[in-house]
């Protein structure tokens, strides 16, 4: 059982290859994907349990010793994110099997989707910076296919922008790796963590750090590099948007966390840049979201806004700020995935996502509206829902640091989120809606069979349940984030686990 940490990874790989053998048999693919999703949750749960109880796990791939081979590391942060990936992955598997039309499924939707999950799992587990690049490429190639699948005009237009900026980000990331390798002669992150602080050439180290910041910044959609996100995330099917919104930007944030807590440390200049970026991201995301009319575009801008919270936590760099950041990350993955599924549900009920034409939902579907209310409340952070607790930690951290700009930006971001969501609620659920002309050839939620309705609602209920648990069981989550934060602050544990002889 030594290779426990590879099982979630290998299982996703197995699943996507296995699904490719059923290329044309959509029904079989649906079943395999959902059953596989359950197994993946189980495997990553076991991994999380092991890491929680017996510390950081490592595997040296192909038995090559640490600084020379590729190491896979599962510390508490990685294990948590792998677990969350598999939970979100299971929910979206369910949701895709109900909501994505067969014409799209026939072109290998599920295999590619599991390749995406494979890339995400790999990116969270790897301990090698070049291997991280490879996982990123797997993620973006699969996401390109998912975002263009179907080939509608809006989709293609969104995809071109998404594609260009993401490739540019990868190339910048590659450039950063080149500079780093030239400086340190190593690619293992734990090894780099010991080499980089001793280097003489600080200027070049800073260049490498900024290149990483730009590369990951594009991927995690921070100010001023976020323009691809609102241009593309509203175009693909809502199931795809759900997994993108929930996890793709977060993997960029994860990479930022990993690089800036492990390799580039104690750099005042960088911390200040991060704080400025965080503040501007919070502002621009929130204000951008105010003017949007499309539900999914509103959520897209909110993704950007809330990335700001995490970057702020990273920039402040204290243990309590890290705890808030990690807690926010956990909460955000669940909520954003759920929100895009909610937008898909609204689309299925009404046939549009435009706020101007929506309305009446609370009147016609009171129970469903209450269900959709849970992720919205969690997003705002009304106590005791899940968004509240990390903000407490972040605000405490900014007060401790006497960093009032961050404090103001966090409060501003939360307040605008509140305004946006209340307005959304009033417009979509309470307002008296117009009678819309029924579309032909469009499967409305009301006309679905009971089984399909359940299939539609199960993932939303599931993730709402997880969000509720994160909110009401905040004690456990706080404990978890504190532990992760202490691991991030003190990177010797990580280095020690990867290269044991290093004392």
């Amino acid at each position, binding site marked *: 059982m030594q290779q426990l940490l590879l099982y979630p990874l290998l299982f996703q790989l197995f699943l996507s290859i296995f699904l490719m053998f059923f290329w044309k048999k959509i029904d079989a693919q649906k079943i395999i994907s959902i059953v596989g999703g359950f197994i993946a949750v189980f495997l990553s749960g076991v991994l999380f349990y092991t890491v929680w109880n017996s510390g950081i796990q490592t595997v040296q791939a192909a038995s090559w010793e640490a600084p020379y081979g590729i190491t896979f590391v599962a510390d508490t942060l990685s294990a948590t994110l792998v677990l969350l990936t598999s939970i979100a992955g299971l929910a979206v598997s369910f949701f895709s099997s109900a909501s994505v039309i067969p014409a799209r499924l026939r072109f290998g939707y599920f295999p590619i989707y599991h390749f995406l999950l494979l890339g995400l799992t790999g990116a969270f587990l790897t301990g090698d910076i*070049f291997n991280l690049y*490879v996982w990123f*490429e797997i993620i*973006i*190639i699969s996401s*390109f*296919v998912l975002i*263009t699948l179907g*080939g*509608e*005009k*809006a989709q*293609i*237009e969104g*995809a*071109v*922008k998404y*594609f*260009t900026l993401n*490739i*540019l980000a990868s*190339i910048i990331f*590659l*450039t950063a*790796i*080149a*500079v780093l*390798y*030239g400086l340190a002669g190593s*690619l293992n992150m734990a090894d780099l963590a010991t080499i980089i602080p001793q280097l003489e050439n600080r200027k070049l180290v800073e260049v490498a750090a900024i290149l990483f910041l730009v590369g990951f910044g594009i991927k995690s959609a921070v100010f001023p590099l976020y323009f691809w996100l609102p241009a593309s995330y509203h175009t693909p099917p809502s199931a795809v948007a759900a997994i993108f919104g929930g996890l793709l930007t977060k993997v960029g944030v994860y990479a930022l966390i990993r690089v800036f807590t492990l390799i580039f440390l104690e750099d005042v200049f960088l911390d200040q840049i991060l704080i400025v970026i965080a503040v501007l991201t919070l502002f621009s995301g929130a204000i951008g979201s105010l003017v949007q009319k*499309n539900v999914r575009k509103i959520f897209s801008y909110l993704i950007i806004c809330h990335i700001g919270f995490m970057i702020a936590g990273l920039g402040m760099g204290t243990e309590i700020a890290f705890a808030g950041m990690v807690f926010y990350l956990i909460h955000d993955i669940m909520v954003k995935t759920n929100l895009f599924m909610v937008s898909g549900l609204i689309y299925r009920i009404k*046939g*549009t996502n*435009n706020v*101007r*034409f929506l309305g009446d939902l609370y009147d016609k579907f009171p129970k469903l509206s209450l269900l959709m209310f849970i992720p919205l409340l969690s997003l705002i952070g009304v106590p005791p829902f899940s968004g509240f607790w990390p903000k407490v930690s972040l605000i405490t951290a900014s007060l401790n640091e006497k960093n009032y700009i961050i404090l103001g930006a966090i409060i501003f971001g939360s307040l605008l989120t509140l305004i946006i969501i209340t307005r959304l609620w009033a417009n979509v659920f309470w307002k008296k809606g117009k009678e*819309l*002309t029924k579309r032909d050839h469009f499967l409305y939620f009301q006309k679905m069979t009971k089984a399909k309705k359940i299939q539609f609602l199960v993932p939303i209920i599931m993730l709402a349940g997880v969000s509720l648990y994160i909110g009401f069981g905040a004690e456990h989550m706080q404990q978890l984030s504190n532990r992760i934060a202490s691991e991030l602050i003190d990177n010797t544990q990580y280095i020690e686990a990867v290269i044991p002889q290093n004392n």
Partner: protein
Amino acid sequence: MEFLLAIITGLLYAAGLYMMLRRSLVKLIIGLIIISNGANLLIFLLGRITKGHPPIIPGDSKIFTEIYADPVPQALILTAIVISFGLQSFAIILIKRAYQVVKTDDLDEMNTIEEDYK
């Protein structure tokens, strides 16, 4: 040699970025290809250019006795080339598809305002 390669790398990055800033989709893809070649060359350059033997130790000795070339940059470049091969072929098919659907290769015209529900 290093000096020359450094200049070429800089030229490739500049040319690639310039092409990416053009409005035509085809030029965009050419820019992407050029800039990723620049990145590959940069890895090669920063991995130290050494004239040496392949890093294989003869069976009867324990350590390297002669100068050897670092294999890691080459492995990295090979991986990056293979990845960009996939990405570029996807990109070409994507722009072809985009041209068929949108009927233009001008990026500025790829901003159709979403049709409202009627």
